[in-house]
């Protein structure tokens, strides 16, 4: 007869745990940079289920309040949870109705507190977040990791983007990029990621945030080149594969 007292609690027992252990449906990198008028952010629309590219229309960037834009990689359901927290935050901010509004810096700090708090409880929100915004002419771009590490920079990336996109940005980013230059630079980064990151899909959105507000583009694809002789006629031996 099993004594009920010897049954370990949910926190001690890994099988019955309520804590986050591994992510299930994940998004891949987000890349963002500051340009002349504000922030430009790009993320593809893929949600991977392990190694399967299962969902191909996941919006991984969302506007927050009047002044911020949030992009996330990692667990999609945790991102949705964060959006609910932020929704409530923005709601209460609006309810004050006093002319003050939360800017990107405040939202970034709030997110840091939330992520760090969850990490301390050993129940992290499995995301790497990119928070960008413009308020009163001040541009702000920051990142928060799932363990609460946060920083601010002129260009940030999550996941694979850190390894593949940031070196490009370090070389080619400069102050006061025009919109077209910035888009080209971002697309260059996203193309590299598309080629080299196995969880990337060729369907991406670019979002821009300026003093006027947020615009998230319609999904589109990047042109890729596969005309290498080594790739010629790949389905010769396997009809129907791609």
């Amino acid at each position: 007869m099993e004594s009920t007292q010897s049954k370990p609690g949910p926190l001690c027992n890994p099988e019955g745990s309520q804590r986050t252990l591994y992510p299930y449906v994940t998004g891949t990198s987000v890349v963002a940079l500051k340009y002349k008028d504000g922030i430009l952010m790009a993320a593809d629309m893929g949600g991977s289920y392990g190694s399967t590219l299962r969902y191909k229309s996941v919006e991984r960037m969302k506007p927050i309040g009047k002044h911020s834009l949030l992009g996330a990689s990692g667990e999609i359901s945790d991102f949705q949870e964060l959006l609910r927290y932020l929704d409530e935050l923005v709601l209460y901010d609006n309810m004050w109705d006093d002319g003050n509004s939360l800017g990107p810096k405040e939202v970034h700090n709030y997110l840091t507190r939330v992520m760090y708090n969850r990490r301390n409880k050993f129940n992290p929100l499995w995301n790497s977040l990119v928070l960008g915004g413009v308020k009163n002419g001040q541009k702000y771009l920051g990142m928060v990791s799932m363990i609460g590490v946060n920083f601010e920079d002129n260009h940030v990336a999550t996941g694979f983007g850190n390894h593949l996109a940031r070196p490009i940005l370090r070389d080619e980013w400069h102050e006061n990029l025009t919109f077209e230059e910035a888009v080209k630079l971002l697309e260059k980064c996203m193309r590299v990621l598309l080629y080299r990151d196995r969880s990337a899909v060729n369907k991406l959105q670019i979002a821009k945030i300026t003093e006027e507000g947020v615009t998230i583009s319609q999904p589109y694809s990047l042109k890729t080149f596969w005309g290498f002789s080594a790739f010629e006629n790949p389905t010769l031996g396997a009809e129907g594969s791609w």
Partner: protein
Amino acid sequence: MTPISPHKPAHLCLLQSSLSYSHLAPSNPFLILAYDKIAVASHRLEPMRKGKRKKKPSPGSSQRERESQSHLLEQKENPNKNPHSFTERERHCDFCLERETKNDAVKMFRNQYDTDVTTWSPAGRLFQVEYAMEAVKQGSAAIGLRSKTHVVLACVNKANSELSSHQKKIFKVDDHIGVAIAGLTADGRVLSRYMRSEAINYNYTYESPLPVGRLVVQLADKAQVCTQRSWKRPYGVGLLVGGLDESGAHLYYNCPSGNYFEYQAFAIGSRSQAAKTYLERRFENFTGSTREDLIKDALIATRETLQGEKLRSSICTIAVVGVGEPFHILDQDTVQKLIDAFEIVQDEAPAAEPDAGAEPAAAAEEGEGSGAGADQAAVPEPDVAPMDI
């Protein structure tokens, strides 16, 4: 007239005089019982008879308790009978009578609806809350003014005696917010601690300064709670909150009632009307004022409340917050220099400055003497109350 009772020990009279302030506090049954026990120990006492009124009330502290207990019952039984009539009060003892007849505000206390903060009067007033606002008027003056970019807080610091230090009335809440209080300084201290805590929590979560308007609303909500709980009492302190945020410089006044108002300039505390009159004449210029002019106006307004006493940096405190300037209290030397700077100009001006001609030493002594004397006469409330002067 009241017969002087030879059997009444002196300390009981003191007890009664302190009891005469119980109309300011809600009828706390425990408080009454505590006093009752003291009375039993020291004096022959009639038992408390609830609901039964004696035609000729005998001396003793129980008289007060019986009245308040019985009146609570009588409110329901006999609304027409006013237990707090002046004649009944007279019979306490000579000591109380002496004080109370001099009390101008005693007419206000003839209310059977003022014992509890949760009791409405038929006219729709909460007397306890209004009494709490009276407490603010007993504190020494605090003045606030703002321009587009700066807020200046000034207050009159009176020390109890030459030996003691003066009450701290201006508190820094954060780098961008400060508060000046008038009334019960203990309550003010507690509230400024709350404000500091709120400001720092906001800064920790959002890494940006708490907007003044939000702090003030939180403060007002906190004050409102005390006006709607029978086991609490309203805070007896008025707060002048001055601060800077995105939308500019702000000055707010928080009442014990839980209301708050935004002002261009305001003064609270005793003899604040003189300061208000001065500010009303000048406030239209404040928006565009420079920092120095604003401080000068604050000092002049402070001087108005002193009514003849010479303004010195030892009896006033000035604090400034502005764009690029965190909230800080100016040190005495700076303030004295500022006073000297405009006082020289003021000598020719027609504004009331009786000490202008006198030598500084004599003037200082005179000013202090007349100031102290004026204090006693002007302030009707006897200084037994544990409030800041």
